[in-house]
C-alpha cells in the first residue's frame, strides 16, 4: 500500500475535522476523494503529508509523498525557477527542465517572482514543484483550480501518463467530479469528517445521490 490510513481523527482545538477515517491507496492506483466544502478533504491531505498531527489513528505512507497543497502555497519571494528547484529538496532533483516540458508557460516565467503570478500560473508552479520531488505518491488538493480548460486537460493527461509509465499513485481531490471520475478508477466520498461512501468511479457516478451533489446537474 502506498497510503494506509486507519481510524484517523484530526481536530482543530475542540472541533473534530476528521472522525475515524480509514482509507487506502495502492501502488500505481489513482483514487479520487470527493466531498462538499468543509468535509475535511484538505485536512486529510495535510495529515497525509505530515503537516497536521493526528489526535488518534495511524497514517502510513509507503514511499516519497508529494503534496499540491490547498491555496498553492508557493514561496512568493522566490523566482519560479527557484520554487521548482526547491520542490526537489527531498529528491535531489535541481533541474526543472522536465517540468518545463510539461508546462511550457513556466519556462517563460522562470525568472518572475512567484508572488506576482496570476492565479492559474501559480497553480502550474505548485503542480510543477510537486513533480520535482519525483514522488511515488502524489496528493493533489485541487488540480484544476483556476486553470484554463486546455491546461487542466494537459495536466490530467500527464498524471495519467505518469501513472502508467512510473506507477505513480495519486490521491486526487478535485472540484470537477466528472474529471475526477474520468481519471480515477476508485473514489471515496467524505462528508462532515466521515467517509460516507467508497467504490468504483463508474458505480459512484451512477449513484443518484453522488451525481446530484457532485456532478451538479446541467453544469460542468
Amino acid at each position, binding site marked *: 500500500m502506498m497510503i494506509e490510513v486507519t481510524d484517523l481523527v484530526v481536530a482543530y482545538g475542540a472541533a473534530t475535522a476528521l472522525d475515524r477515517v480509514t482509507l487506502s491507496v495502492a501502488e500505481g492506483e489513482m483514487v479520487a476523494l470527493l466531498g462538499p466544502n468543509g468535509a475535511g478533504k484538505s485536512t486529510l491531505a495535510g495529515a497525509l503529508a505530515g503537516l497536521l498531527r493526528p489526535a488518534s489513528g495511524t497514517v502510513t505512507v509507503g514511499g516519497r509523498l508529494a503534496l499540491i*497543497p490547498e491555496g498553492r502555497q508557493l514561496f512568493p519571494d522566490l523566482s519560479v525557477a527557484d520554487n521548482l528547484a526547491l520542490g526537489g529538496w527531498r529528491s535531489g532533483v535541481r533541474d526543472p527542465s522536465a517540468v518545463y516540458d510539461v508546462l511550457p508557460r513556466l519556462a517563460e516565467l522562470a525568472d518572475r517572482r512567484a508572488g506576482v503570478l496570476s492565479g492559474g500560473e501559480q497553480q502550474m508552479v505548485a503542480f510543477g514543484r510537486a513533480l520535482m520531488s519525483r514522488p511515488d505518491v502524489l496528493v493533489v488538493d485541487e488540480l484544476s483550480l483556476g486553470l484554463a480548460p486546455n491546461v487542466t486537460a494537459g495536466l490530467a493527461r500527464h498524471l495519467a501518463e505518469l501513472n502508467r509509465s512510473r506507477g505513480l499513485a495519486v490521491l486526487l481531490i478535485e472540484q470537477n467530479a466528472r474529471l475526477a471520475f474520468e481519471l480515477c478508477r476508485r473514489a471515496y466520498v467524505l462528508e462532515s469528517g466521515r467517509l460516507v461512501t467508497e467504490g468504483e468511479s463508474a458505480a459512484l457516478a451512477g449513484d443518484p445521490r453522488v451525481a446530484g451533489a457532485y456532478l451538479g446537474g446541467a453544469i460542468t
Partner: protein
Amino acid sequence: MSAFLTYLLNGLAVGCAIALIASGLVVIHRVTGVVNFAQGTFAVVAGLCASSLLGLGLPHGASELAAVLAAAVAGLLTGLAAVGRPGTTPLSSLIVTLGVGVLAYAVEIVLWGDQPRSALGLAGSVTVAGARIQTQHLLVIVVTAVAFVALALFFGRTYLGKALTACASNPYAARVVGIDVRRMGLLAFALGGLLGGLAGVLVTPMRPISFDTDVTLIVNGFAAAVFGALTRPVITLGGALLLGVAETMAAGYGYGSHQLEIALGLMLVVMIVQAGRHPAISQEPT
C-alpha cells in the same frame, strides 16, 4: 577635495560597521521572519569576550576567532528560545529576542561587570589619495565587503541559501517540500550570531563596549536592515553606507549636532519615495 574624500572614506567605514550589524538582522529575518532585537547583544558578547581573551594574553586572531564563535553560540541559544518552540509567531519571537537581550545584560554584568571595556585593534592610519583613514577602519571595510559578497552569493546563488530563504517566504510551503524549518531557523540564528560577533570584534577597538551598547548598535543596524526590507543584503549595505556617509558629511559640513536627524531623515525620504512605487495589491496573495 581631500577633506571631502576624508569624510567619504570614513563615512564608508562607519557605514560598513553598521552594515555588519545589519547583516545579521537580515540573515535571521530572511530565514525566520523574526526581527532579532538581540543582534546587538551578539556584538557585545563578542566584543567583551575578545577584550577578556586579549587581556589574558591570547594573541590577536585567536582571541577574535574565539569571540566570534562565542557569539555564534549565543546566536544559536537565542534561536533555540526564539524559534525553537513550534508555533511561535514572529511577533512572539521578536519579544523573546528582546527578552534574551535583557537576559544577556545580567549574564554580562556577572561575567564582565558593568563598566565599559575596550580592546586594542590595528594602530595607525593609511593615506589614500591625500585622505587619511585609520587602519582599523580599512579592516572594517575589507571584512564587510567580503562578508556581503559572500552573503549575496550564498543567498542568491546556492541551493541551501534558497532553501533558507524559502523558510521565511512561506514556512508552511517549506514544510510541504520537506525542509526542516526549525533547524534552518537555528542555522540562521547561529549565522546571525557569527556576523554580529564579527561586528563586535571589529567595533570594540574603535569604541568602548559595555553591556548595554547593544541598543546603540542595533538602532543604526535596524535602520539599514529595514532599508533592505530585512531581506536583501546588497540594499542593506547600500542603506548602511548611506547612513554612514550622511553622518560624516553632516559633521564635515557643519551640522555635527544634527547628524542623526539628517541621516535618519534622508533614509526615511528614500523609503517613502520607494514605497510609493509598490501598490498594495501586489503585496497581497493572488
